[in-house]
């Protein structure tokens, strides 16, 4: 049986539904030694801001049961360095390069969008209104429907024809509320979830395991939470969704798509095994055959409830 792994998310065409999640795949190039980048459905690069950022003091990461906490604090080389020193070396003609955007104000977000709207190498913008590890911006936008909508309106106005992906935070009472707000503001695609607020401590030193005290929880531990939120958004709104959260094997990819995601992002699992995302791409045709589907239109959102 010949299978077609392509997916289409409201205009964003991907050769397969497997992207790598922001912050877990560097600027892409770090992983070139573990597979062919062009084979991925897409690469979402580390969150970028207008100016380079140093991020939070160390320790910034700690392992937790079936997962990890991070409080990187969006250390990044800045959008201009990315465009100059990284993008040209990425296979942007063959795979979707998505830029994850971080800013501290509506205006900065809008400025980032207008900087990128003409960049041919960029397939889409992912607006990160859900980072729990920064003092300003990040999650405050993502926990407040009014602020979130404003940010997205600004980005949409300045992004030209680039699809705008909005990345949602799971740290909310009702994910549907914020989803609705950003859809109404013009979001083309939603991606979820970002990390869950968490913390770890060391009883021997009596200190928090992270210098920042709080961090974001990711990894297989959070998969059930992510799956539910993706399902809730997909079954309530008519918007393309990218599922994220704990994806670590091919079955996980299919699970997120079954509840309605049109594509997925692999995050922390890239640390566990740097060749993983490439392997998942290779495993797609076989599992599609086993499931008896020739394309994802037959699968996405087909959960039997």
């Amino acid at each position, binding site marked *: 049986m010949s299978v077609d792994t392509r997916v289409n998310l409201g205009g964003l065409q991907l050769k397969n539904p497997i992207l790598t999640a922001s912050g877990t795949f560097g600027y892409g190039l770090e992983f070139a030694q573990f597979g062919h980048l062009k084979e991925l459905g897409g690469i979402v690069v580390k969150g970028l801001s207008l100016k380079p950022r140093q991020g939070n003091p160390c320790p910034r990461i700690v392992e937790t049961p079936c997962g990890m906490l991070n409080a990187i604090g969006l*250390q990044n080389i800045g959008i201009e360095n990315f465009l100059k020193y990284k993008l040209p070396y990425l296979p942007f003609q063959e795979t979707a390069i998505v830029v994850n955007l971080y800013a501290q104000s509506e205006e900065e977000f809008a400025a980032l969008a207008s900087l990128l709207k003409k960049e041919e190498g960029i397939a889409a913008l992912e607006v990160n209104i859900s980072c729990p590890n920064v003092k300003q911006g990040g999650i405050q936008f993502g926990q407040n429907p009014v602020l979130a909508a404003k940010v997205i309106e600004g980005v949409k106005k300045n992004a030209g024809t680039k699809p705008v992906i909005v990345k949602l935070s799971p740290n909310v009472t009702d994910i549907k509320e914020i989803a609705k707000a950003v859809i109404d503001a013009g979001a083309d695609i939603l991606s979820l979830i970002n990390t869950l607020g968490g913390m770890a401590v060391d009883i021997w030193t009596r200190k928090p395991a992270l210098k920042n005290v709080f961090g974001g929880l990711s*990894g297989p531990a959070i998969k059930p939470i992510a799956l539910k939120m993706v399902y809730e958004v997909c079954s309530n709104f008519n918007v393309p969704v990218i599922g994220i959260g704990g994806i670590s094997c091919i079955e996980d990819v299919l699970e997120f798509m079954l509840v309605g995601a049109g594509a997925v992002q692999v995050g922390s699992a890239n640390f566990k095994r*740097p060749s993983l995302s490439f392997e998942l791409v290779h495993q797609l045709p076989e599992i599609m055959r086993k499931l008896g589907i020739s394309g994802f239109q037959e699968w996405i959102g087909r959960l039997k409830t």
Partner: protein
Amino acid sequence: MFNKTLRVIDVQRIDNAPLAHLFLETLSLDFKPGQFVMLRPCQWEYDPFWPRPFSICTQDEHNMHIFLQIVGRGTQKLAYLQPGDEVDCWGPLGNGFEFAVDEDLLVLAGGMGLAPFIALSRKHPNPQKIRLVFGHRLDLDCYPWHLIPAEVEKVALQQETQTALKDFEKRLQEEIFSHSGKVFACGPRPFLQVVYKYARQAKADAYISLENKMACGIGACLGCVTKTKQGYKQTCVHGPVFSVHDLEDF
């Protein structure tokens, strides 16, 4: 750079010491002393989640030898692997120690910090150029001391008491101040802090190998950074070996 699933050939645990030698299938890879590999047994599945970084201790046509100290969950599990078990492995990673074959090296090792210097001394074409000062808590025969070539000028000093530790600190100071070539150090954080202090005071050309927590080992997660004069740098790709003069806030 390779990325492979290797079989465990043998594990030798040291009696009454939290130490083990792990022998994996060889890779016949070329590596610099001080470079490391990330190891993750396949049986870990999701927990522990991260791989663990280890220096390559030695390598020949038969196997890659990792010398490890049991300090937590991961190293505990690694030390109890069985022959035949599979371990994901990628590397060699990091910069390693840079030196010219004819320069005089002062090598300072604390405990497990001996591991990369076994490779260094065995790969060095002129091992007589190396002076190795080794501080250890456990008995010397717990460590693979015999793997160090005879030509190396070596001193092992045991610290079982607080006084011995003070003496050792003084000794490190003297060694650093009286040496004129490069200084290399690897060991636990408090040990490295002593080396850092005196090496900076002495304006020595000293390099220390950091053991920060690492999730990816390839520069992607930004979790292992250390504060340098140029800002936060990933220890896994810009290190693990740093000049003491580049490091801030250590």
